């Protein structure tokens, strides 16, 4: 596993929303997807994932739905709501702003 980076405060929401934009997923699915896409840089454990999921659900940005798998196991699959989509767009713009500003500071010639 590659070295893990510390998650920036507030980026977890964006990561989750973006992951759910592609397809509805349950808890393990979200962790797996994030770990895969970031090649193991972001490992989101249940201790931060579930509180974030419930916080996002309370805001109405995502919605949980109980689904039954073939092996009779019931899992809660989260999907993006309409307001979640709007929120994601806003967070993406915000992130772009931070990203650009950060890079400008770091690229400044001394």
């Amino acid at each position: 596993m590659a070295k893990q980076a510390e998650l920036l405060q507030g980026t977890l929401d964006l990561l989750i929303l973006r992951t759910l934009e592609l397809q509805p997923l349950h808890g393990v699915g979200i962790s797996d997807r994030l770990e895969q896409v970031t090649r193991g840089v972001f490992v989101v454990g249940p201790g931060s994932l579930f509180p974030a999921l419930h916080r996002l659900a309370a805001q109405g940005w995502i919605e949980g739905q109980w689904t039954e798998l073939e092996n009779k196991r019931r899992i809660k699959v989260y999907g993006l709501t309409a307001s979640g989509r709007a929120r994601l767009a806003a967070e993406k713009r915000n992130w772009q702003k931070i990203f650009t500003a950060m890079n400008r500071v770091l690229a400044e010639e001394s």
Partner: protein
Amino acid sequence: MSWIKSFKTLYQLVFERRRVEKELDAEVGGYFEILVERYMEQGMSREEAQRTARIKFDGPEQVKQQVREARMGAVIEATLKDVRFALRMLRKNLGFTAVAIFSLAIGLGATSGIYSIADALLLRPLPVPNASGVIALSSVTDQLLPGLNAISYPDYVDLREHNRTLRG
């Protein structure tokens, strides 16, 4: 906005505690179950797999506690946001605020005023000694204005002077 949602969360927090807890338990439990199965596929025994999952991440109980705190926090945050928003709007529309407060004041004042009168007239006994012994007298005439059955002052004096049935 999101106030319907936060009301729902609050409702669940207060009235559907058991169901929410059960769901949370199933959700977090399911997560750990999947992890444990993965470790078992790697050749661990069930106990070993459970222990590894617990060591790698927080235990299910801690996770659930963190979720509870996050939910509570979201409700409080949303409520505070609504209150702040309301206060800001009130300050922005001073005219509206004044009218609203004025109508509320008038409404409350009128209601309690009317009630005080009704209370004194209808609900409480008359403020005299032996209030239940007080009677109302009226005269009956077969002519003139119907409904006008007051007693004239001379009649009253007569009644008072010659009364043997009533006290006072």
